[in-house]
């Protein structure tokens, strides 16, 4: 062996095969247990954001189609689901959970193709979580009397659910599993850029012999969502997405006093103290903002680092960010995949330009991006002022805004200085400081010495303008039952 020869530390390409998925040329709506053509006759194309290649043609549901779906859901509720013993409902949900586990790789590849996220994440995070959510909620279906002490609860009826494109199948699971466990039937609208895994789930639901109408899936964009929100025969709405759209939905629901759950945007502060385990904190901060290309409502998009360690910490962070592998989402070694859509890429670019224009210092590692598809280089901003748009607005991309603080009180002040309140991170080796901070941070989820952890038994959801209601855990059941928690709508 010639010791003068440098080792080649380049990764060889390791692409996941796409043979496992079989994407149909076109997909219809899933209503009443069957795939049915949209009355509208309208369609839209779903593409692979990493290549801009057309994947399939999807039916666009009109108001008439949504109406048909709500009717089917009502029938499913009255004829099957409402009066089915909890033990039976549980069996269906367990069956769905198992079939998801069995076809997990197929779903993961499809998720990555349609949404652009790294296969490493869809395979090791999204899909295991999807199955776990069905499994966890299945067990509640026949135990609801123990969930709400001294209160007899009943389902709402037909639930309208609208989900985003960042965790397409996982968001479907977060919505469908607790709704079904508590005895509701659903009409779900997936996001227009990522409909494919929800439609594959519809096929799986057919295989699981779920009674017709219990789950209905209507594909489309904003107009389809609007038709669902405004449908007079919906008993409850659940929405995950942007705060702007959430507010529009809240208006529509307020007028009708319709029970509502909102899981909206965030601008989470990730607070690193001088007594943190520094290298672990660097990893945590990187995971916090670059997980799923930063398309995460709870992304740690504002780093607050204590002034005494800021210089060293930022230098380490830059070294680490330069090692991120950006590229083919199907490659098993990819850390950061494709931006989900051209529209989202434009929004990220626009906000990053505002950061530069407003005077923050930009850092982007030297990083070769593929020629086709939607891509954005992982980006750090230092010298960020509270007034900068990049410190206040949700970017929903791989962009981290860095600010400093001197005291814990100042960290709390800065962390809470936002209309959002979804999540927060704390890094310190001092236990009492963690609890002191956790108590004061206005956020629904606080990660201490870790970040971006999720579990079906752990409630998730926001304070303030990040929405209301929880998903996951015991607390995630109450939005789906009437009279569980008084009269909050």
């Amino acid at each position, binding site marked *: 062996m010639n010791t003068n020869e440098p080792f080649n530390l380049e990764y060889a390409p390791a692409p996941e095969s796409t043979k496992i998925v079989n994407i149909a040329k076109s997909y219809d709506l899933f209503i009443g247990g069957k795939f049915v053509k949209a009355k509208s006759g309208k369609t839209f194309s779903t593409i692979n954001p990493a290549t801009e290649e057309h994947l399939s043609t999807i039916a666009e549901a009109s108001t008439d189609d949504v109406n048909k779906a709500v009717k089917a859901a009502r029938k499913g509720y009255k004829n099957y689901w409402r009066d089915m013993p909890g033990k039976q409902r549980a069996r269906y949900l367990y069956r769905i959970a198992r079939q998801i586990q069995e076809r997990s790789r197929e779903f993961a590849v499809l998720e990555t193709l349609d949404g652009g996220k790294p296969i490493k994440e869809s395979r090791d995070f999204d899909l295991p979580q999807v199955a776990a959510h069905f499994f966890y909620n299945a067990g509640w279906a026949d135990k609801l009397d123990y969930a709400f002490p001294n209160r007899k609860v009943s389902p709402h009826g037909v639930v309208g659910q609208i989900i985003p494109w960042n965790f397409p199948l996982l968001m479907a699971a977060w919505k469908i599993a607790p709704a079904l466990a508590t005895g509701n039937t659903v009409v779900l609208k997936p996001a227009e850029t990522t409909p494919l895994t929800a439609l594959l789930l519809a096929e799986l639901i057919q295989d699981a012999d779920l009674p017709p109408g219990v789950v209905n899936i209507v594909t489309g964009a904003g107009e389809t969502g609007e038709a669902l929100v405004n449908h007079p025969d919906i008993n409850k709405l659940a929405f995950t997405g942007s705060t702007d759209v*959430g507010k529009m939905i*809240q208006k529509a629901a*307020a007028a009708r006093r319709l029970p509502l759950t909102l899981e909206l945007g965030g601008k989470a502060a990730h607070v690193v103290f001088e007594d943190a385990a520094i290298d672990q904190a660097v990893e945590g901060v990187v995971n916090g903002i670059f997980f799923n290309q930063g398309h995460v409502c709870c992304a740690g998009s504002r780093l607050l680092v204590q002034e005494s360690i800021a210089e060293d910490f930022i230098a380490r962070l830059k070294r680490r960010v330069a090692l991120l592998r950006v590229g083919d989402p199907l490659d098993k070694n990819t850390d950061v995949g494709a931006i989900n859509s051209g529209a989202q890429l434009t929004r990220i670019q626009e906000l990053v330009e505002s950061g530069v224009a407003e005077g923050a210092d930009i850092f982007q590692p030297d990083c070769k991006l593929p020629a086709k598809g939607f891509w954005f280089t992982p980006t750090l901003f230092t010298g960020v002022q509270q007034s900068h748009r990049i410190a206040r607005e949700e970017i929903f991309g791989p962009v981290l805004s860095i600010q400093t603080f001197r005291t814990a009180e100042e960290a709390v002040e800065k962390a809470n200085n936002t209309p959002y309140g979804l999540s927060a991170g704390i890094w310190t080796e001092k236990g009492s400081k963690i609890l002191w901070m956790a108590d004061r941070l206005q956020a*629904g989820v*606080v990660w201490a010495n870790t970040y971006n952890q999720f579990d079906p038994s752990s409630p998730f959801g926001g304070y303030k303008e990040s929405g209301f209601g929880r998903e996951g855990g015991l607390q995630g059941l109450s939005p789906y039952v009437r009279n569980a928690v*008084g009269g*909050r709508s």
Partner: protein
Amino acid sequence: MNKNLPVAKTYKLFINGAFPRSESGYTLPIRNTEGQLLANISKASRKDLRDSVRAARSAQESWASRTAYNRGQILYRIAEMMEARREEFIAVLESTGETHKEAVGQVEDAIERWVWYAGWADKIHHVLGTVNPVAGPYFNFTMPEPTGVVGVVASEEPALLGLVSRLAPIIVSGNTAVVVVDVEAGLAAVTLAEVLATSDLPGGVVNLLTGDKQELLPWMLGHLDINSVDLTGAPNDIDHEILEESAVNVKRTVWGDPTDETPYIIADFLEMKTVWHPIGR
């Protein structure tokens, strides 16, 4: 027969622990069933509402950071103070048309509400909080926290119990409140404020505005520093556009029952916070 002319009480607003008149200078008369003037009640303005929200916001953090034991004791103290003034409450309710029996029943129930919710101060966490068995080496728990500043539209029917049944579960967890009541319920509400002012309840935890609910409601729903609104006493025919205002800062809106007694009302005005920490050596 009184030798002297009785000294009539001036009924004012209750803001930040003090009893100011409305800055607007407006009052509304309230008369007994025979038409005799009982009081000229202050009619709260938009400015009074804003001042109340500021007081409630300033008081919220320190109220919430008191121990649950301490908040429980203060709620119990409110019950004690009400008990001491029960005859006055009964007289107030009778003067506005309740029978003696109804008045006594309402006052007793209202006192009972404070005692019942006082006990919840250090128990609600047991019932609503959880330790979550996540599939990984993490300690994970969920605990309830107060929502923040709550706008309360109190029900006049029944005047005293409708107010207390909503207020007690809202403040017991550490929320502060801005309450609007219509003039008809004003005497009972202001008398309650006098109890609150002498019960060791910190100023600003409860702010009470008498006036025209219909007029104050849009300002309450549109206020950016109110986190949640209790619409239990809101008129049924309330305009859609007014309700839509609640979306301006994603307010939690609650429609409840005016006299229910359940810990789930406390839950309506809570946020759930989940904390994760790794387990390791």
